[in-house]
């Protein structure tokens, strides 16, 4: 029963307006408390920012750096509010996590020219997994509020030779746009797209993982950016213009009838002149 309920809950979250994800998720957990942990780990939410006062840097919050009600900062590797024995990555993994955060910080700057990024890693039996988060809010220019949230979950299976690995990436990008203007009233275009990609990579040293993950994430984000552009500003716009026609439909029918007549007349003329 619980598995069916989880599937129904996820189906519901794909249908309810994404603009109210947090409220919907909270209500859903209230309604079916047994699904709480499953829902928190499988429903993507817009990323929240917290301040690491020790390091003087911002970091992003998600279920992967959460332990109870506390969140771990990737900069200081400590929990806020403090936890006695909060989950921490092993030393080896923490070293890689530090490198990854620095690398993706640069990636973020090059593509987003602002925003906040965070990388969290955790151990698996034959490798490790991680999440790469990026949040970029717009500056509100032209009276439009915009925000981009990237959530890349990557699973790295290290081959027994230690010289190659298999990378499985599941990425969700959330894009939020809203405006309130006299001409168009309130317009809220938001939500997310999810894609999966996997590939193998050679590993010559630990930092090779960062190169392999980086390339995979970059390719994935570039693809999703392209699709977001098509869906948000192409598809949904076409649907709106299919619901109502600014041009009177009677005029269009006339135009269509005219061009059909013309085509028929041309065909007849060609038929006559053919031998």
């Amino acid at each position: 029963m619980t598995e069916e309920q989880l599937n129904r809950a996820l189906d519901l979250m794909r249908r309810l307006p994404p603009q109210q994800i947090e409220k919907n998720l909270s209500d859903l957990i209230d309604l079916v408390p047994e699904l709480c942990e499953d829902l928190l780990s499988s429903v993507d939410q817009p990323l929240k920012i917290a301040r690491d006062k020790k390091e003087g840097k911002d970091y992003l919050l998600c279920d992967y750096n959460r332990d109870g009600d506390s969140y771990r900062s990737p900069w200081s590797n400590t929990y806020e509010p403090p936890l006695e024995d909060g989950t921490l990555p092993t030393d080896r993994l923490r070293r890689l996590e530090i490198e990854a955060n620095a690398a993706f910080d640069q990636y973020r700057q090059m593509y987003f020219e602002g925003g906040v990024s965070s990388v969290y890693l955790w151990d698996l039996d034959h490798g490790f997994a991680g999440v790469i988060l990026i949040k970029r809010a717009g500056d509100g220019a032209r009276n439009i509020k915009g925000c981009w949230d990237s959530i890349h979950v990557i699973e790295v299976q290290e081959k027994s030779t230690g010289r190659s690995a298999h990378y499985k990436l599941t990425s969700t990008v959330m894009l939020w746009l809203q405006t309130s203007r006299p001409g168009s009233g309130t317009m809220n275009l938001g939500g997310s797209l999810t894609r999966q990609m996997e590939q193998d990579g050679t590993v010559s040293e630990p930092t090779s993982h960062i190169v392999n993950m980086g390339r995979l994430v970059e390719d994935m984000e570039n693809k999703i950016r392209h699709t977001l552009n098509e869906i948000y500003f192409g598809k949904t716009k076409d649907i709106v213009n299919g619901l109502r026609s600014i041009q009177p439909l009677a005029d269009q029918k006339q135009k269509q009838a005219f061009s059909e007549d013309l085509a028929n007349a041309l065909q007849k003329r060609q038929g006559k002149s053919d031998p």
Partner: protein
Amino acid sequence: MAPDDQISDQEKVRIASDFIRHAPPGEFNEVFTDVRVLLNNDTLLKEGVAGAFALYNKDQLTPVKLPNSSIPSLVTEHNDIGGGRFFDPRSKQSFKYDHLRKEASDLQAWEPDAAVESWRDALESQFTEYTANHYKHGVCAVFGQSRNDSMSLVACIEDHQFQPKNYWNGRWRSQWCATLSGGTGELQGTLRVQVHYYEDGNVQLVCSKNVKHSLTCSNEVETAKEMVRLIEESESEYQLAINENYQTMSDTTFKALRRQLPITRSKVDWEKIISYKIGKEINKAQ
């Protein structure tokens, strides 16, 4: 909260009803089934949540086919006569409406409000022609109500495209209310558009706009023509503004969030990024 702390039945009903009322156009059945399984209490569903079905259908301006008429009507708050019955001013009938099956039955004769009927009828003619001219599959309805010294006319349009096989649905709703008293009147409109795209994702467009105009009313036909002229102007202006926003959102806002490529015009050199970091670490160690 601990799994033992269950919320009250009242809270469950509130949550279930909220979910139902926010079902995107064309997906009521799927949301209903999801909520039914999650609530896991058909008695509570029937007793506490059934009201939400009616509110949803009325809010969506749901089109309804009448068994003995070729022109569909709409289910709205304006033609709700209680007891699960609604009236269709065009065919002068009332019907029982099943909110789950979305079907009309038990048709009976319905008496229009004589004081306002000539005005309502005139507007219905003009408005029906306007709807056919701009909404390929649009359904419209005009309701009239007279009071002591004023009249109110409500004109609604609904058009939708449901393509679940292609993972999208959309609906346009217009609601125009005119209050006429003496020789003047006020025209108020609420325009709403909702689009849901859900192939490997969940993207929704939710738009709404309120419009106000003042009216001068001479006779039934002239007033109806003026109303429709203002409505056509407002709705087209709205649609153009939405399209302009799309342009700005894509050209300006979206571009400023993430570049297509870094300023170098080529992808990131990850080897370089790693070596730079290692270089810094080595320097720090010294």
